[in-house]
């Protein structure tokens, strides 16, 4: 009985600890260094002139991620020059989903002519720091000196199926507000997505 209680308490504590991980809007985000599809490692600190970042956890295999690929490219083309580049990160373990391997990422990036870095979270630590749970999952960060502040968490827009039927572009609206020196009106939404794949 005591053993069972102890076990349950440990389980509860670890569950709380896992739950407590991850950023909320207003938190400061830690920089990271991950391998890009060209083999070079990238950190957010490399972007001296950026005003912020659109960090998107995404992958090759998930239909929601695929449905948003063209829209992610468009956002990068539109906002990179304004200081908010897209940083895409694949958080999945290829041992669970072979299609999300580093080679698979290189192939997909080439097919779709990605205009942004597509990084591999090989140790699966960065997504845990962020608290990402699925693909695609967006975190917009603003940069003030060395501080990276989380300004928006959630989904890209309000129609995962059909880009032509979108009526609210959450990510673009948030960046537009930040560019005007204002806080985004909507700072949190819930994105539908494929759970991030891990072993065990």
């Amino acid at each position, binding site marked *: 009985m005591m053993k069972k209680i102890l076990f349950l308490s440990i389980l509860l504590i670890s569950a709380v600890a896992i739950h407590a991980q991850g950023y909320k809007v207003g938190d400061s985000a830690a920089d990271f260094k991950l391998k890009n599809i060209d083999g070079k490692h990238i950190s957010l600190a490399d972007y001296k002139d950026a005003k912020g970042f659109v960090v998107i956890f995404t992958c090759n295999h998930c239909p929601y991620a695929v449905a948003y690929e063209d829209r992610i490219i468009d956002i990068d083309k539109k906002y990179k020059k304004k200081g908010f580049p897209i940083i895409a990160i694949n958080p999945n373990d290829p041992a669970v989903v072979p299609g999300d391997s580093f080679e698979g990422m290189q192939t997909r990036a080439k097919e779709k002519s990605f205009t942004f870095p597509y990084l591999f979270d090989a140790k699966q630590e960065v997504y845990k720091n962020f608290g990402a749970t699925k693909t695609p999952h967006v975190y917009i960060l603003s940069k003030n000196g060395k501080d990276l502040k989380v300004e928006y968490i959630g989904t890209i827009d309000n129609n995962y199926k059909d880009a032509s039927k979108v009526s609210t572009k959450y990510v673009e609206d948030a960046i537009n507000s930040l560019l005007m020196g204002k806080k985004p009106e909507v700072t949190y939404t819930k*994105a539908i997505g*494929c759970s991030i794949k891990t072993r065990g």
Partner: protein
Amino acid sequence: MNNGIFNTRKSYLYNTMKLNILFSIALLFAFSINAKSQDFETLNFKDLEPTFHLQNDTTYVINLWAMWCKPCVEELPEFEHIRKSYENKKVKVLLVSLDFGSKVEERLSKFLIKKNINAEVVILDDPDANSWIGKVDDKWDGALPATVIYKKDKRKFFARKVTYSELAETIDNLNR
């Protein structure tokens, strides 16, 4: 399925000894199983939402899944197992498919036959996911798979793959 009617029918057939009738009934029966898994209702969340709040003495097991979702497909047999073992116990299993794209109904139908899944399936087609994810369960943030088990106002939510024993334990707890 009503075993009583089936048995009556069976003894009647034995009595009349007309094997050709037995064959045609068996054939009809086989077709009706196939036909059942080919018709899907496609709903938006507003139409589906009441199914998450029914106030009767049935325990509802509602699983959100998709054919391309690996953990979802892995756990499907667990739901089918539950459906069979609780068949006469006021437990209803509903599989809510989030599949989309071309010929989704046809693909779904083939998939379910191949996997031998006979639980009721509906398609949720509501692309403004942010508007309804929190209404499935306020703890859910939108990652598939997800499962709601409830009876009246008592409910339990899983934002991950579940096993037969977890499902059975939850159903039994809700009925204690």
